[in-house]
């Protein structure tokens, strides 16, 4: 690259500003000593964070989200791993159709799945809505991401490594434990992190399928209607953004390392 500052580079910078600008307003105003998110800035304060930390129902919602997201991440990854192995290591009749069905949550508007689950749970099965129903729906929408991350890793390393393990006398389980799992490990962690974030941030499914116990996004949505709750929302939102960003970067770095390790 001889010219460093081409119009396209300028565009990329503007794009990044457009992408991040609005989102970064939230942390900016969360430290501002004002109940409204308006310019000019008045002064630095941490009181919004302090009042948030004292909010019992918010802490309850946070706890709910943490529990749901953790369990969802574990289940989605635990289901995703054998699925990814089956889809990459076997040529199964109908495998493509199953993979396509599993990818549906990526495209179909989540409101469709939300109401469909609502119907079967409440109208047909008469199940009480709870965090359990939220979690079940989250497993479903996390699964495509878990499978994609795991599949790209499994496709990334040489299949003959597993064959070599077989040749050296390991059985199926031993090969999985001693070869496949260690090699897929970065992707497993990455999948756990991604599923955690997706579940933790998910709103529409939780909005339709949670009972009296809200998850954090549902709680947050309730607060958005009240202008006087704005500072608390800003503080909480900023924290969520920070945590998500850290987890995404970690997941992404792990995934990339996992993919790039394949031999040239």
């Amino acid at each position, binding site marked *: 690259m001889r010219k460093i500052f081409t119009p396209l580079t300028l565009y990329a910078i503007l794009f990044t500003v457009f992408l991040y600008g609005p989102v970064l307003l939230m942390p900016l105003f969360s430290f501002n000593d004002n109940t409204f998110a308006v310019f000019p800035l008045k002064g630095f304060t941490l009181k919004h964070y302090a009042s948030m930390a004292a909010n019992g129902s918010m802490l309850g919602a946070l706890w709910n989200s943490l529990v749901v997201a953790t369990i969802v991440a574990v289940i989605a990854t635990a289901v995703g791993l054998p699925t990814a192995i089956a889809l990459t290591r076997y040529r199964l009749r109908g495998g493509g159709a199953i993979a396509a069905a599993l990818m549906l949550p990526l495209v179909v508007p989540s*409101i469709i799945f939300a109401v469909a689950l609502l119907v079967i749970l409440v109208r047909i099965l008469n199940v009480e809505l709870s965090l359990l129903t939220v979690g079940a*729906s989250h497993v479903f929408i996390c699964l495509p991401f878990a499978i994609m991350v795991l599949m790209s890793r499994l496709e990334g390393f040489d299949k003959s490594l597993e064959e070599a393990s077989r040749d050296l006398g390991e059985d199926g389980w031993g090969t*999985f434990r001693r070869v496949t799992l260690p090699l897929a490990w970065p992707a497993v962690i990455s999948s756990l992190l991604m599923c955690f974030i997706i579940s933790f941030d998910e709103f529409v499914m939780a909005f339709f399928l949670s009972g009296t116990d809200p998850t954090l996004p549902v709680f947050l949505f309730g607060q*958005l209607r009240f202008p006087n709750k704005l500072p608390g929302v800003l503080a909480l939102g900023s924290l969520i953004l920070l945590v998500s960003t850290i987890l995404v970067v970690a997941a992404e770095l792990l995934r990339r390392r996992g993919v790039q390790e394949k031999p040239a």
Partner: protein
Amino acid sequence: MPDAMPRQTAAGFSGLAAGYALLSPAMLIIVAMLVAPMLALVTLSFWTQNGFELDTSFTLANYWALIEPADEPTMWMGIPFPFKNPVYAILMLKSLVMSLAVTAAVILIAYPMAYFLAFRVTRYKALWIIIITIPFWTSYLLRVFSWKIMLGFNGVINSGLMSLGIISEPLSFLLYNPPAVVITLTHAWVTFAVLPIYVSLEKIDRSLLEAATDLGDSKWQRFRRVTLPLSLPGTISAALLVFIPTVGDYVTPTLVGGPGGTMIGNSIQSLFLKQDNSPRGAALSIVMMAIVALLSLLFMWAVGYRKIRARSA
């Protein structure tokens, strides 16, 4: 699944059995979370809500309610809607138009960025890609909400412009209208479109571009004749990946749309949670999905997606 690892090749019978055993949890989830609920949704759409009771006798009334003709057509944006409940058709059309606008804006904004990533970035490519991906993974709700802070009557743009002395009164046309929804959705989805386009650009063999130049193309001709056609598969998938989910979006119109910016998703939500008419809500969901699916297929057929994909494979 102790004995569930592949036996050399996938050809053997026991290998196949192991393969299906590995797939069984996922298949269970498909049945429980996809097939059964969808069947329930379809079934419900043929039933009727009678107060708190569900009338389970088969009826097409819920679908009929969506298209029942009226003597006097309702006018909306100069278009006549000859329906008794025109709100559904109007919202459907509005949602489709808004989604199309979002899709067009997303592709136009994302393409140059993807091009930049594929052809201009040589060092720190991974860093750039992470920068582009982070917003996609952070809370959708919060990203949409940040536009409410931006565009609100007491929002950042208004207060900023006022404190700079450019305007004396807050601008009221920024928030709570369809353009606000389109802007917000574009911002929320643009990062989702960059990656598929980037991947299809990155896959283009650089010697093809050199060959085009060698055969006499200028940079612009080369883009039009080689780069653009070869990036179409990724661009088309990106367009569909944005268009399909945004038609049914619920969060954005609720937060920044106001009464004028509602979309079909609001109507579905209202039928289920407020009007307590879930059978009609089910019918509306199914019709929306069918229309979106049909339009997507039509679009793919129109651009010859299969052929494009096969050729650039």
